[in-house]
Every structure is written in C-alpha cells, then in structure tokens.
C-alpha cells in the first residue's frame, strides 16, 4: 500500500495518508471555509458524519459531495467554494 496519496485542493497538490477523508485533505491544505452559506458566510464541517452537508465540495467535477463521507483517491481534484 502507498505511503501517501496526492490530490489537488483548489489546484494545489496535497499529500495525505491513505484512508484520509477528503474533508481532512481540505483542512490539511489550510482551507477552513468549505463553502459559503446563502448569506455568503464561511462554513466548514459541523457533524462529520454526513448529516449536515456543511462540508460539501466539488470532487472531480461532481458538485455537492459530502467531503466527510468521501475517502481520498490518488489524483482527485477537489474544489471548495469558500
């Protein structure tokens, strides 16, 4: 098994151990606002278990993915909307 996976968060490469959540990769990239609310306020994960949708990001072009339920894959492209 690989030691690390590399994916991109907002175009920047991030290395994470296998088994990491996409949410974790976003946090490790130094991004705290995953998306903005309808009143344009910054939001990040709240529940960490797929309930609240506050961790939603775009993964490989698929909008609105819950990053707290998605495991990182090599070469994944993640876009936040903070």
């Amino acid at each position, binding site marked *: *098994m690989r030691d690390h996976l590399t994916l991109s968060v907002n175009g920047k490469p991030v290395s*994470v*151990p*296998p*088994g*990491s*959540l996409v*949410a*974790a*990769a976003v*946090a*490790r990239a130094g991004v*705290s*606002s*995953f998306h903005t*609310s*309808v*009143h344009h*306020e*910054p*939001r*990040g*994960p*709240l*529940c*960490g*278990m*797929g*309930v*609240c*949708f*506050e961790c*939603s990001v775009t993964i490989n072009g698929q909008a*609105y993915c819950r990053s*707290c*339920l*998605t*495991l*990182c894959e090599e070469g994944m492209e993640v876009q936040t909307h903070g």
Partner: protein
Amino acid sequence: MANQRLEFEVVVVGAGPAGIAAACVAAENGRTVAVVDNSPWLGGQIWRGVQPGESLPVAPETSSPSPRQQSAGRGPGRGAQTQSQTRAGTASCGDSLLSPALSSRGGEGEPRAARDWLDRFQKCGARIFSNATVFAAPAPHLLLAETPDDVLELNWKKLILATGARERFLPFPGWTLPGVLGPGGLHAMSKSGWPVAEKRVVVAGSGPLLLAVADGLKQEGARVSLVAEQANWSRVMRFGVGLLRYPGKLLQGVGVKTRLLGVPYRCGCWPVKAEGFAQVESVTLSDGSRSWSEDCDYLACGFHLVPNLELPRLLGCAVANGFVSVNEFQLTSVPEVFCAGEPTGIGGVECALVEGQVAGLATVEDWDRAKDLFRQRAAWHHFRASLSRAFALRPELRQIATRDTYVCRCEDVRLENVKRCESWRAAKLHTRCGMGSCQGRTCGPAVEFLFGWDNNSVRPPLFPVRLASLSAPCNINKNPLETERPSSGV
C-alpha cells in the same frame, strides 16, 4: 445508469453495532442478509477506525472472501456479482472498506468487543453495501439506496432499522463559524486524517461522549483545554455512582478520567458565544452567574445525541416520546420491520448490541434465544434511563441563541424569524427553516428543544440525490417486482 435489483431475506439499514449484531445473527442462521450504510466504512460512528480481530490482512486489496462467504451465496444477488460491485461502491465483507488505513495505529487501545464483532461480521456471510444512502421506500418491501455510481433496489422480506443517532446541536452566536464542530464528528474525522495534533480544543455540550472525545483527541495529540458539561455536578456524580452496576462502563470511565488528568472537567457550564474572523478563535462559556473566554482552534460542541428517525418515520413506524416504539422482540408497529439501537432510545454500544441480536433472532424466529437476552437488555435499558436523566438539557440553554443567531444554517434563518411562527410546518413555509440540504436534521432537534415543535414531517427523498436516482422509483411504482427494465436515467 442501470439499477441493481437485489433480493434479500433480511435487509439491515445501518452498519453500526446494532446493525452488525443483527446481521451476524440473521446470516449465521442461514438467511441471506444485506447491510446498507451511507459511509465508506463499517462500525458506524462509534466503531469508526476499529480493525476487525485477527483475520484482517495487512493489505486488504489482496484479500479474498472467506470460504464461508463464497459458499454462502445462496440468495439472488450474491456471489458472482461481488467483484464488479466492489468497484461500484459496494462490496462483500472482507474488502478494503473494513480497513480505514489510518486507524492501524489504534492497536491495543481498540475495544475488544468491536474487533470481535467486526471479525464475526466478516465471516458471517452478510453482504455489505457501503457508500449507499437509503433515500426512498417507493413500494412495500422495497428500499432504494443511492451509491456513487448507481441505485440499489433492495427487496426485503424482513427489515431491521439500525439507523443510529446523530449529535444534537443548539444554536448560539458564532456556532456557524468554521472550526465549531460536533465532538463526535471531530473525533471521527480525526481518525481519518483531520488534523488535530497541537490544536487547542474546547469540548463542550453534554453527555458521556464529551469525555470519550476529549480522551480520543488528546491521544491524537490535541491540546484539550476544557471539557464543559452543561449538566450539574450532582447529576453527573449520581450517574457516575450508578456506573457501579456496570463494571465495564465504570472501568472505561475510570480509564478515560485517568488519561484526562490535567484536563479540567467542569459541570454546570455551557458555551454562550463563539468568536473568530474566518474561523473560531475563542469561546465564551457561562455557569449562569459568571462568564469567561477560552482561546481555541476548535470548539467541539454537541448536546448529547438524537436518534435518526427519518427512515422509520417514512416507513410509518410509530414514534413515541421521540423514539421508535418497539415490542419485546424489537418489532415496530409495521409488520416485518424491526428497529434496534439508538432509534429506540439513546443507550450506547452495549444496549445496541443486545437489541441488534434480539432483532436478528426475531427475524429468524428464534424466540427462545431472543428471550435469553431480555435480562441483559433490561439492564442496559436501566442504564439508558439513567443517561437521559443525568444529561437532560437545562432550560438556560433555551436562552443562548440571540435574535439574529441562525437557527437553520442551510438557509440562514434567524431565530427572530423562526420565533414568529407557531409550528415547525409554519416555520418551514414562512421562513424556509429546515428546508435546506440537511432537510431539518440539524435545526429540527434544536427547534424541538427551543419551542417544543415535533419534527415529524418526512417525505422522500430522505437525502438530496441525483436526478437520475429520482427517475428510478417511477419504473418501480408501475411494476414493483416483475420487470428487469433498466432505469431511463436523466
């Protein structure tokens, strides 16, 4: 997009302790069993990151299903499809989803019971469909679940609902700032790479989970500066003394407290405000007479747990006092639908395991073995009652949200607007409170506590799903069991 049509004698929704126990019992008694869970791993939230016992290979990709598993493929949808379905986000037990790689450091600290159950589950022959979110029940004995690639049409003869619980969040100024998370959520994510090492964390809210989370975060290298429990010291002490009846729990508690030496555990205080620019930087707490601030990188704040009742309600299961009503064999008010674990009452892992086994035995109609577990279950129900007494929410918590605090964070609906409404339904219609992507899962329990509104209106889809997934029920409704027609896709 083609749907997968599958039939099982027993379908279990939820792969936490209750679901795992129920599935093991049913499968070991020869039933074809499927377990559906919306996460990529097994064990629910509480066992996330736990490795099964001795049999898990180091490199799970190379593992093959156990002989028992291969020979157990009697029902439709078993065996031959397994390999292709692994790619489609579903898998048989024994595939890599059992092993979130980061958790390997857990080692001896992991609860033995969790590893034993997960190990037993791997061998029991049940099929696991992970990353599969149940979103509709368009016909009797049929559930639809969305996976990353397609839709599963799960036909069942008996259904076990083990949907678990989530954390209760209460609104207060600043609770929407990034860095304010649920304690269980932060702990769970920290096991899967979320950075907590060297971070200053205040753990606040209510419930025994707070101490367990503080312990877990500390072991991950976080600097936990305070655990703030809203319940009064006297109640918590009474609960602690009551643990003498449960030696295992007592030992757990003592272990946690010992490891948390140096971390203050303050009862009778609660957060009233979180502040920060782009993310949380400090939290103000109050004990009712004085307030003070603590600097933090994360505020882990949750007020005990609330059951996930959406699917039971969609299926028409009777709910009383906030929990699914079940008889002594865990049967709900709906024939052939059973419920086990937190949806019947917040009782913790041991309670869920016993209820899961009873439900599993009930599906195979082994009433005698089910009855043998009643005494054990009664003891955990006693524990469950003491939990709810000890960590009941104090009325002061109804005052911590100010008029401009967002109650519904999906739609940014402020307290002052929600307050003007006379019911949950009116609030939905007039303010969009609870109408966003979480569908009221976050604000629902909050307004229930704040205003006493029952959040009982549930309709499909239970979660936001792709349009293509929504097209599937149309075909099924016309002809639920006969055709093999592929879905039209959108």
